[in-house]
């Protein structure tokens, strides 16, 4: 893991589509304790059931989101790439990862501290609202895609 300066994190966030257009003051506030981390192939970014204290924004590479249970092999249900985000468990109690996240290509991500994010969003409702307006479409799109996957669209 590579620790990075706050300035580098802020610059990376301002270039990331998720944070594009946000007030720089908000971006600086959520960047506190944020880092840019590289991950090699098969490195885990998140492990199901463990504490979810990070919000990832993918800069490079590809991350697989995996679910599974003890009696069956892990199943990749989605991959996300540059410009996309990983993780909502930091926002939703009990703040435990609901899936594994594994790098399937060499990857670089911004890792934002979940506690800092929650505190910032709660203390600044206007920023919090803007954040949720940006965050909900991501969740909605993933829900929509999951529904399409459930339709098994490749079966005639």
């Amino acid at each position: 893991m590579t620790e990075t300066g706050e300035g580098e994190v802020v610059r990376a966030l301002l270039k990331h589509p998720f944070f594009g257009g946000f007030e720089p003051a908000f971006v600086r506030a959520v960047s506190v304790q944020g880092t840019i981390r590289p991950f090699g192939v098969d490195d885990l970014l998140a492990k199901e059931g463990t504490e979810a204290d990070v919000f990832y924004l993918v800069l490079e590479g590809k991350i697989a989101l995996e679910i599974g249970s003890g009696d069956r092999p892990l199943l990749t249900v989605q991959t996300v790439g540059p410009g996309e985000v990983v993780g909502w468990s930091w926002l939703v109690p009990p703040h435990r990862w609901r899936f594994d996240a594994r790098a399937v290509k060499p990857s670089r991500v911004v890792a934002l501290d979940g506690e800092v994010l929650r505190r910032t969003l709660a203390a600044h409702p206007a920023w919090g609202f803007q954040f949720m307006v940006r965050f909900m479409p991501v969740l909605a799109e993933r829900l929509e895609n999951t529904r399409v996957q459930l339709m098994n669209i490749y079966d005639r």
Partner: protein
Amino acid sequence: MIADPAPDPTSTAAAGHPLAPIPYVVRSVILETPDTTTLVIEPRATRRIPATRPGQFVMLYAFGVGESPIGVAGGNSHGQLIHTVRNAGKVTQALTRLTPGDAVGVRGPYGQGWPVAEARGKDVVIVAGGLGLPPLRQAIYELFQHREAYGRIEIIYGARTPKDLVYYDEIQTWRHRSDIRLQVTVDAAGRDWYGDVGVVTTRLPDARFEPEKTVAFVCGPEIMMKLTAQALVARGVKAESTWISMERNMKCAIGFCGHCQFGPSFICRDGPVIRYRDLEPLLGVREV
């Protein structure tokens, strides 16, 4: 229902009848997935069907069982044809069980194909879902053959799992081409898959093309084509420049029987490749 003429494959008595199949012989068989097989067939004698255009289909006749409409996946000037068949019923089960040397009947080719010539000078986006890749294969190779005549070429192929991908080895060779972009995605995968996972429409934002000068060819199950066409149009591709390949219950294949009627169109004659603009109001309507 059209009565099958049930010809003797060695007979020439039925020559010239529009519903009479021409005898071909299976040259080779490739098992693509547990239920899907690619047949390479050649004329048994000098008679052969006319040259096929990308996107057309033929009626393949499993002698003693019946015939089924199958898209043309390829062919050559010697009359060789390539068809990829999924075992989905009595006829296709018989076709997928053919072995080299077996006889098969062919009539056709039928229908309107992909507007490959019209796409010259433009960016081309090809989106295939599941067994929608075979009817696009011949068009893809025609684009490759005249690569300089087109702008960007984006190929997006989606399947349920990695085991459901057809033409796996060929796709690996496409990956090495620097003059096209290829994205392959599956709905779900195990840990041995390092590619993309997600429905085929999730790859469109990553595709590089200029929407206003793009022609799109989309082939797959109807729901997949509908969602893909909607996503392409939302991205700015014109509905009249988006083409989809419809599959209906083709029987006679020459516009007589009406089995394949879809709204005002007979898919066998007016399709299978049709502009999305013309079908958009009917897609998703139940019992059309």
